[in-house]
């Protein structure tokens, strides 16, 4: 007999998790507490140990999928016949049958502890609703003729658990029939009754929770068309998604590979990407920053020809063999130099204090498979140029592999975003929350530049800086930007450090 493991709530009140990676495959044998899967919740990445021993029969959820707690995720066959959970599962229902005083003990094999508050609350509500039903029990035909058994004691309530369940079943059926009736009403079945004015008939809307309702509205779906499967006859999110998927399938058009959808497909022309993980964190951080810190942005065009030459020389230098040298390295060094001269840009604003950091944890915005991350180089001020080059390489490599640790991203004091690698001239970056300065490094390309009254081609870039005006005034940000620009124009000034 196969044993099913359902996704538990591993935090407090988590309702879903992403399946990151399976540590076992079908056919593997597992022992109790062997790690079988790694999941990611809103709070953390967690390894789940197997509650059973036996052979993995099937993995019920694919990697990368997001599933709700309580969803069966793995089936494990055979193993220990006296498996504890078997006992558990058979025990609960029998106990419930004996112990009528506790309708909370309804047979519910899936309702293990911690399967999330969502499942919990749905169950409780379902029981409470029909609870008063036993009161009119004498009306029930099957019960009325039964003679009282000898020794029978009449209590306060004349119901019983089996009866109560029966009533609950009847109630559910009635609700369903009622819903059917409502659905057959002219207001909903537009074709059924010809000539009747439909507007005057009371219209009961299909049941659905507000997010589902909103989604349906956005998708242009009439909820009345969707088959509801919810406990209370409501259209669930899954119902809506199934319906939409069904519509998409049935109206599938020939140009599958084409990005653009023809209008004829109806309203299903909008692709929905769930906002979660890094995207969600980025969105939160950016809107927090944009709406709390008054940004002031300034720009400066820089002749970076000498920087390019310097980079070229470093590349050739035996000392830098095997180390990747880019203009970003010079810029990073320039930022450290300029921050020491204008310390207030390397700070944190709190409403009562400006915390000036006498160290530089230099953040580098990096596009990674997980999304935008800003890992930082701790104590960058202590690093030599070569050490800084190595640190930059490590940081970007780690980020690209998606292995950046949360601690790598905390405690940043200033950020550089290297938009130049994408061929962009400049932009107005948004501050990393907790910092008061950020610098966008534009692309470096040859442009006409006036030197001593003559137009000559030079390597030119644009620096775009954004600053939190609460902490950094215009003159200070200008001085800082000018200092950075000065280094790019003449890296030899670094010798001054």
């Amino acid at each position: 007999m196969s044993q099913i493991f359902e996704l538990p709530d591993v935090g407090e009140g988590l309702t879903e998790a992403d399946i990151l990676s399976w540590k076992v495959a079908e056919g593997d044998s597992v022992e109790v507490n062997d790690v079988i899967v790694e999941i990611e919740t809103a709070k953390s990445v967690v390894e789940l140990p197997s509650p059973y021993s036996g052979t993995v029969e099937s993995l019920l959820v694919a990697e990368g999928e997001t599933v709700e707690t309580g969803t069966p995720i793995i089936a494990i066959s055979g193993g220990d016949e006296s498996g504890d959970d078997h006992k558990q599962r058979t025990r609960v229902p029998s106990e419930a049958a004996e112990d009528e005083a506790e309708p909370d003990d309804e047979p519910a094999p899936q309702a293990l502890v911690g399967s999330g508050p969502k499942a919990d609350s749905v169950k409780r509500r379902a029981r409470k609703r029909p609870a008063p039903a036993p009161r009119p029990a004498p009306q029930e035909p099957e019960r009325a003729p039964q003679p009282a058994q000898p020794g029978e004691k009449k209590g306060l309530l004349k119901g019983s658990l089996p009866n109560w369940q029966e009533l609950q079943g009847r109630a559910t059926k009635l609700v369903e029939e009622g819903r059917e009736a409502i659905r057959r009403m002219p207001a909903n079945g537009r074709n059924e009754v010809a000539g009747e004015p439909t507007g005057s008939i009371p219209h009961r809307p299909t049941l659905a929770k507000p997010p589902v309702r909103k989604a349906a509205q956005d998708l242009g779906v009439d909820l009345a068309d969707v088959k509801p499967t919810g406990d209370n006859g409501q259209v669930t999110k899954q119902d809506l998604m199934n319906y939409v998927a069904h519509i998409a399938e049935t109206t599938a058009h020939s140009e599958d590979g084409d990005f653009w959808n023809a209008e004829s497909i109806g309203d299903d022309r909008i692709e929905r990407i769930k906002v979660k993980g890094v995207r969600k964190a980025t969105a939160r951080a950016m809107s927090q920053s944009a709406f709390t810190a008054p940004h002031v942005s300034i720009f400066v065009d820089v002749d970076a020809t000498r920087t390019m030459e310097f980079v070229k020389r470093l590349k050739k230098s035996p000392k830098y063999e095997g180390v990747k040298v880019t203009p970003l390295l010079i810029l990073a060094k320039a930022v450290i130099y300029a921050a020491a001269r204008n310390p207030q840009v390397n700070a944190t604003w709190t409403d009562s204090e400006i915390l000036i950091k006498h160290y530089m944890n230099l953040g580098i915005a990096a596009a990674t498979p997980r999304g935008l991350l800003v890992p930082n180089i701790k104590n960058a001020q202590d690093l030599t140029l070569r050490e800084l080059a190595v640190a930059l390489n490590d940081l970007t490599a780690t980020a690209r592999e998606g292995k950046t640790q949360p601690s790598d991203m905390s405690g940043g004091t200033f950020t550089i975003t290297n938009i130049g690698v994408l061929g962009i001239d400049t932009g107005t970056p948004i501050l990393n929350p907790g910092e008061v300065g950020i610098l966008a490094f534009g692309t470096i390309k040859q442009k006409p530049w006036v030197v001593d009254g003559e137009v000559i081609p030079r390597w030119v870039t644009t620096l775009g800086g954004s600053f939190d005006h609460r902490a950094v005034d215009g003159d200070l940000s200008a001085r800082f930007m000018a200092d950075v620009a000065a280094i790019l124009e003449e890296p030899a000034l670094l010798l001054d450090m």
Partner: protein
Amino acid sequence: MPEQQTTVEVPSNPWGIPARLQLLNEEAQLQHDDKFSPYVEDIDRETLQQVYRTMMLTRRFDDEATALQRQGQLALWAPCKGQEAAQVGSAFATRPEDFIFPSYREHGVAISRGIDPGELLALFRGVNTCGWKPQDHNFQAYTLVLAAQVPHATGYAMGLNFDADFGNERDPNSDEKPAVLAYFGDGSSTEGEVHESMVFAASYNAPVLFFVQNNQWAISVPFSTQSRVPIATRAAGYGFEGLRVDGNDILAVVAATRYALEKIRAGEGPVLIEAETYRLGAHTTADDPTKYRTNEELESRTLHEPIGRLEKYLRAQGTPDSFFEELMAEVKEYGASVRNSALNLQNPRFEDFFERVYASAHPLVQEEAQWFQEYQEGFEEQN
């Protein structure tokens, strides 16, 4: 961020930071201390083996409970991994008549007090609010509200001063009063209740031992942010003795606790012990420690965990391999029994709740219990 911390220069110990007591160092070598070594002289190898066994069972229990939570069988779990010496050692130094007020992480103390795994897990499985009868073990229910147990303990200890014979019923040969132990952590130590408790305990000379396990992290706040000086330093401000011990050194913990309890029993009032230990696991299973502490820190702290140190010492003292092998087998079996008892927990009978309202019978509660019984019997006819 730690970098933003102002470091306080304390060249000549102007704050009176207590010296850190260590009797068994990181390399498992005995250290002599004139004052404290005599307190553990009577502990022979066999006794230490028993203590080691309790620590191992605690570790296994904790691991099993963590796994059960990950399998959806417990709603939550607060691991005590790494704190076994502080917990088992201090519990070992108590007498049965001493009354203990735990937080929610004192699994090693609970096991030492004879509470069985199922009783301990009932709360975390959501089956019961407390799985044991506190009076049966002189071990209060777990307190989930941080620091709330500290004023309870202090009040109980103040009561003992008025009701001197209370604990002696258990030990008629002793003319000493029982003591009260309040367990809490470094995080709780920053809460107001702890301050108030210490003020009251000092004012009323309450026979209470404040036993702080400083596990270095208050969820995600490091100890360096919580306090500029070790917590034990604070005792001087209240006017009683504060001891600072290596909380991963079983002998130091036992010696300090015995010394403190001796003083308390002799009527000298409260004592504070800070056991410096380290939480190897998460704050609770709802927390992800990798978000606030580095792997390097965890690795270096793991090197100093208490069970390995005691094992090394025992082996050096001549404990045979067979002891460890047999214990491993026992521990494995124990893990399975922990799992079993958790999964087979029974819901309490509703009637039991009526019995817990008052210590002695109360007419109103009896009336309600009567009503409930009638109500219940109303269902029985249909069976």
